[in-house]
Each structure stands twice: as C-alpha cells, then as structure tokens.
C-alpha cells in the first residue's frame, strides 16, 4: 500500500518492523480505574516527528491513554517507553494540554503567569524564572499570536484564546512529544485552522504530536497516522487503512449505522481498501492475548 513516506505502517505487538525512529513505544498498555478497565492491551509505536490522531467514541479511553502517557494514571500492565536520543537530557519530554473543563478559570493568574508555568519543570525547586525563561515565554506567546494578551487574567479570555494560552504553555515546555486532548472541541473554524497550521509548523520542527479527537474527517485529511480506539486499539496506521467500514463499526458499535451514513469518511480516503485489515495495522489483535 502506498502511503506517504512518513506514514510508517505499524506492526503487531511482537515488535517486528518497529520504525527506525520510534519516539514513543507502548507495549500492552492496560489502565484501569477502580474496577473498570479503561484501556486494554494497547501496543503501538509512534515514529519520531509523527503526528497521530487518536479517534474513538466518548469513553473510548482517549484521555485515559494521554493521562497514562504523562504518568497521571498508573499502568496495570504493560510499559511505555520514550525512545529518544536526548530523552535523558530533556527535563520534560512530554507536554500535555488537558481538556478545557479541567482547568479552574477563575484562578487569579495572568496569561504570562500560566505560560511561565511551562518553564517550572526546568527551573527546579526554589529557583526563580531567568531572562532566558522569559524569552521562551515571549516566543511561545508570539507563536500562538497572543502576545497582546500577556497581562490579561485567563478568566477574561474567550475559549479559543484560553486554548492558545495552554498551547503556548506546552510549547514553553519545549517538549519532544505533545499531547493535545480534544483540542478541536468547542472551537470555531478559524481557531481550528490556526491549530492545524500550528501542527504543520510543529511537524517541520520534528515534534511528535498525539491529538485526540472525535472529528474523523479532520483525522483522515490532516493526519498521517490514525489510532482508532475503543477500550483497546482497533486499528492503527495511515487513515485509509484505519477508516474501513469494519473498523469503524467495530469502534462505534451501535452508532455505526449513523456513521456509515457519513460517507464523507470513505470518500476522502483515496482508496478505502476492503482488505485494509489484511495489511495488519492491528497491534494487539482482536482482544489481545487475554
């Protein structure tokens, strides 16, 4: 199958065919809240500099996956490996932008205060921000075109502006891997385009990005790799191989009928391969070894 040269097709859980520059390797990652298993046996490799859309219905475990990646949730099983040349030298290799509703917007902090928090990981305890940190903050604000908002309280901003503040903070962390949880939710078309432009710039800089979304159209048009999730990894690979009717109905179950009406997904893909699953971008297989 001819995908873009960047789109490494992932292999199964046996580890064969791991891309040369795998940045992030997940092996049989299983996460449980209380008694409920939210993610089961997820095995996937993200290439260095790759951009992955993590797609799935509500409750599929997209946020859970991200929280496990940054160490907010313990793994019941499996491992996460950050394989990067200078991962050791990096103070904070992974930056995470949570969903908007997880933030207390009434807290008295200004935009530049929030972005400066991205530098705290490098600053160490008791140390005050230096001129170099302020420079990084100023650059991050510029990058997101919110330099003029620097001294405004975050609570006064619009939803789109607040999202930019958190993106700027993530950039100020100078991460290798950036995790964006539902960044397209609740933003208007221009904000979405601005975000996609930013992702393009990050791609050129070689920053690995994982974006969770339930917008399958954006996922298939603007991302080289898609991970289709519903409690486990249903399919992972280039969009045409992932968005097959079989995979979609497997991910969305009862909602598949409604989704099959959205032929948009099939049309946008150059050649929806009926035998897509035959190419094997199905790490972990169906249900895994359990």
């Amino acid at each position, binding site marked *: 199958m001819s995908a873009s040269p960047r789109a490494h097709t992932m292999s199964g859980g046996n580890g064969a065919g791991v891309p040369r520059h795998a940045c992030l390797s997940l092996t049989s990652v299983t996460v449980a809240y209380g008694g409920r298993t939210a993610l089961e046996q997820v095995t996937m490799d993200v290439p260095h500099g790759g951009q992955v859309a993590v797609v799935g219905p509500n409750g599929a475990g997209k946020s859970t996956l991200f929280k496990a990646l*940054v*160490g*907010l949730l313990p793994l019941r099983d499996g491992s996460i490996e950050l394989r990067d040349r200078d991962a050791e030298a990096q103070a*904070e290799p*992974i*930056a*995470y932008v*949570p969903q908007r509703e*997880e*933030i*207390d917007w009434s*807290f*008295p*902090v*200004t935009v530049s*205060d*929030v972005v400066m*928090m991205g530098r*705290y*990981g490098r*600053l160490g*305890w*008791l*140390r*005050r*921000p230096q001129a170099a940190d302020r420079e990084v903050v100023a650059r991050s604000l510029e990058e997101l075109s919110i330099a003029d908002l620097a001294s405004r*309280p975050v*609570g*006064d901003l619009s939803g789109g502006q607040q999202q930019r503040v958190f993106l700027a*903070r993530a950039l100020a962390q100078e991460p290798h891997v950036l995790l964006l949880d539902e960044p397209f939710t609740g933003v208007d078309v221009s904000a979405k385009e601005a975000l996609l432009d930013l992702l393009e710039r990050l791609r050129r800089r070689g920053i690995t990005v994982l974006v969770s979304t339930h917008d399958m159209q954006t996922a298939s048009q603007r991302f080289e790799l898609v991970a289709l999730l519903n409690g486990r990894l249903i399919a992972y690979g280039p969009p045409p191989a992932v968005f097959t009717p079989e995979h979609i109905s497997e991910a969305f179950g009862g909602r598949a009928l409604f989704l099959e009406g959205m032929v948009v997904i099939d049309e946008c893909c150059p050649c929806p391969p009926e035998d897509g699953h035959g190419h094997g971008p199905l790490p972990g297989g169906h249900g895994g070894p359990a």
Partner: protein
Amino acid sequence: MIHWLTEPFTLEFMQRALVASLIVGVVCSVLGCFVVLRAMAFLGDALAHAILPGVAVAYLLGANLLAGALVAALLVAAGIGLFSRRGAVKEDTAIGILFAAALALGVVLMSTVRSYATDLTHILFGNVLGVSAGDLWVTGALAVGVLATVVLLYKELLLASFDPVLAHTLKRRPELLRFVMLMLLALTVVVSLQTVGVGLVAAMLVTPAATAYLLTHRLSSMMLLAAAIGAACSVAGLYLSYYLNVASGAAVVLTATVLFLVTFVAAPRRGALARRAAARRAA
C-alpha cells in the same frame, strides 16, 4: 483625634495586642489566599477546632499552650493528609470526623478543670489583651517561618493550586506540596489562637483573602492586598474593642466582614454592581 488614636496604645498590654493582631492579620490573610482558591475553608476551620485537645493537655500539664496547640495541629494535619490520601472515605467526611472528635476531646479535658468556662472562652474566642511578651516572640517566629516558606515555595504553591495536573507531570510532587500547605495552615491556626481564638480563625483565613480576590487578578497581588486588609482590620478591630468595650477577636472579624460586604457590592470588576452593569450591557 490624634489623642483618640494614640491613647489605647499608651498601655503596654495594648501595644502587645497590636503587634500580635498585626502578625495574625497578615499571616492568616496570606495563607487564606490558598484556602480561598483551593476551597479549603472547611479544612481551616477543622484544624482550628482540632487544636483544642492539645491546648487542654498543655494547660493541664502547665506547659506552654502554644506548644500544645502546635503539636495537636500538626498531628491532625498529618492525620487528615493520611485519611484523604488513601481515599477510604471522602476528604470532607474525614475532616468532619476528626474535627468533631478533637473538639469533644478538648471540651472533656477542659471540663476537668474548675475554671474551665472562662479558659474555654479564651481559647474559643481569643484573648488578645492577655498576650505576654514571650507569646509574642513565639507568634512572631512562627509567622516569619510561615511567610518565608510561602515566599520560597511561591512558584510551586501557585502551580499546585492552579493546575495540580501540570504539577504532577512536571514531577513537582503535588501531594507533598499539599502536605506542606496543611502544615502551614496548622501553624497559622496556632499563631491565631490568642487573638481571634479557634472559633473565629476560619473567618480570618477566608474573609480578607476573599475580599482581595474580588479586587485583583494575580496571586501575588491578591496576597499583598489580603495582607494589607488583614492588618487594617486587625487594627480597626482593636480600636473598636477598646472604645466600645467589646471582645477584640470578634471585633476584628466583624470589621473584615463589613469590608468584604462593601467590596462584594462595589468591587470594580467582580462586584455585584459591576456584574449587573456588565450583564445589562451584554443584554
């Protein structure tokens, strides 16, 4: 007028009361900013009541009351931290149980003493006029320690209060910072024991900080303004207490409450009037 202002402080015990009130007004208000922002008001109140048995034991043993309060407060703060970490019961339930039990234990211990009604009143509502020079030194040292910790850990405390998730991903140990916060709160409650007493310390923690919250939009300016408000209310409360011959701790708290009410109505951006005007403009 000048005479009216200076007269109370010609008395030595009033001078000591003034210094003690200023210290408490500043420390409570600064720590109170975290209490307000992290919705820990109940916790502050609980800690205040929980020190009662420590004070009672110290009193019965003839030991230093502040030392007894300190030990009890640190024990209870550690206990609450432990209960809520394991998640066996919800945190406010754990606080409620500990706080009521400690208060009851304190009352039981105090009731074994003949003069307990008067002593209990002093502990519950403070007796700033009875502050000794020795108490003042202990209060001052604790206050300096609390404020220095807040200044040194400002960046970490800001991060852990605003975004515990980022604090965690940056390996800033939010649970350790929470524990530090509990300890600072415990020390603050002890510092406030003699001026406003355990019954009213929650008001000193919350009211000036809440007033400052309505007027600022940065944590650092909120803290500075809260400290100024706390200090001003303490002095004003002392004057009221002197001239109207009313209980000093209660007078300080009521002064702070009046200031809050005025701010709540008239604050430029977050006040009730400003919000109403903004809503009308938007409509």
